[in-house]
């Protein structure tokens, strides 16, 4: 039955569009604002204000910020295009400004976007469900990467700068399972094709494809992208 319902889809990110955190408001009262600042994330609703400061111990990583939000009564979130272990306490990690609510897969939420040139990190999370609160059971579902392609203006082509991680939501581990050399270009597409043997996550796990650089990943609005074709079943 899973194979009949399986969907092959593609997810593409460009400069500053990876969704580091998907945030939803789960209380009945109204949201006033969700604002991303250089060193803080501020969540305001009718019950009050929560300010998460990235330099504070416990919220210096994406995972720490996510855990803080999920510990609040009125808010929930999910780490999407990023790793829990990514440091956010220094430098420009997120796109700043007021976050506007949007509806994705029937869920109203807010996207905290990653600053790709600030982090030198372009990630895409391959997951069965990109929602926070819809609550599709993970057991029985899995994802498989068919191929991924990119054109990215990285600083220096280098070994182990193209990676795939597997996220285990039970063990709470992010394990690197694939590595390749990065290619620097603003025009030539680099493709890793697994169509004869797709990289398959364990049931319930996610896969995160990452292209990164040690020193820089310049914005190139018309050419930069990372795209992953995958099966969700």
């Amino acid at each position, binding site marked *: 039955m899973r194979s*009949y*319902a399986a969907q*092959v*889809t593609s997810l593409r990110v460009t400069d500053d569009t990876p969704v580091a955190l998907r945030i939803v408001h789960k209380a009945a009262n109204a949201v006033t604002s969700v604002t991303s600042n250089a060193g803080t994330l501020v969540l305001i609703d009718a019950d009050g204000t929560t300010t998460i400061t990235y330099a504070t111990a416990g919220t210096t990583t994406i995972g720490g910020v996510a855990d803080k939000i999920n510990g609040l009564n009125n808010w929930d979130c999910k780490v999407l295009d990023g790793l829990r272990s990514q440091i956010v306490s220094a430098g420009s990690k997120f796109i700043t400004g007021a976050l506007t609510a949007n*509806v994705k897969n029937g869920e109203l939420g807010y996207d905290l976007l990653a600053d790709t040139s600030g982090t030198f990190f372009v990630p895409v999370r391959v997951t069965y469900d990109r929602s926070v609160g819809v609550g599709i059971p993970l057991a029985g579902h899995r994802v498989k990467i068919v191929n991924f*392609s990119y054109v990215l203006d990285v600083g220096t082509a280098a070994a182990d700068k193209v990676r795939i991680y597997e996220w285990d939501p039970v063990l709470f581990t992010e394990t690197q399972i694939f590595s390749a050399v990065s290619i620097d270009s603003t*025009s030539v597409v680099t493709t890793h094709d697994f169509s004869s043997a797709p990289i398959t996550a364990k049931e319930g796990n996610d896969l995160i494809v990452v292209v990164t650089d040690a020193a820089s990943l310049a914005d190139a609005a*018309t050419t930069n992208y990372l795209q992953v074709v995958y*099966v969700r079943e």
Partner: protein
Amino acid sequence: MASLESLQARSLAAQTVSGYIVDDKSIALELVYTGSNAVTSVTLTSATDLVLISTDTPTTVTSTFATDTTLGAVVDRINASANWKARILDGFRSTTTASSVLIPNSAVTAVTIGGESVYQIFIDGSEADSMAFRASYDRGVLRDDFGRVKTQVADRVGLNGWKQNAHRVKINKIKYSADVSGATVNGLRIYEIDSVTLAETEIWCANLVDDTVTSHDFGDFPIASREGNELVVAIVDSALADKSTNFLQVDYTRE
């Protein structure tokens, strides 16, 4: 979640079809008259407006492109009128109506497709620097490709138990030749159109190849929409020139 039987039935009933677009034949809009009187005229002035005249009251619906600057605005205006309905096909809600992108620059004659009398407005590829094709379960406005009356409401069960929400499309292969500026990054694109939110999200791309028949075969992993959604394949460039050999072909499965 759907039952195993319904998924098996959907798979058995699946149909693989092909859409083929040549120069200036991407259909921006299809319009149908829904009133009980008669159509007087449908006239497009490319740089200015689209005027629909019937013998109803009010007689005239005008979409002025200086106000309705996108196809989405044009369709919304038409669909808000009493006696006309419209649908965007091989274009996007964000497609501009400026710069004489829409053709023909004249009166538009109705054609019958799938038992439905429709007026077709096309996109001038060299003006828009784009050509596109929408892979949809059906390409009708009020009737599906089998001539059955359909609804646009999610989960509505139609005359033959047909539920729009349970259908999807899968792109098996894209083939094209287009006289473009060069190997444009992100020049060949697939968008997924959300039938509920109307969001148009780019999900896949490839570099263009200039003036050479080029194929992208998704083989055992055809790109599939979510249930109820559609996929639009588009060639987007800075300088798409008219040429008799230009074409875009999309082989897809509708199920």
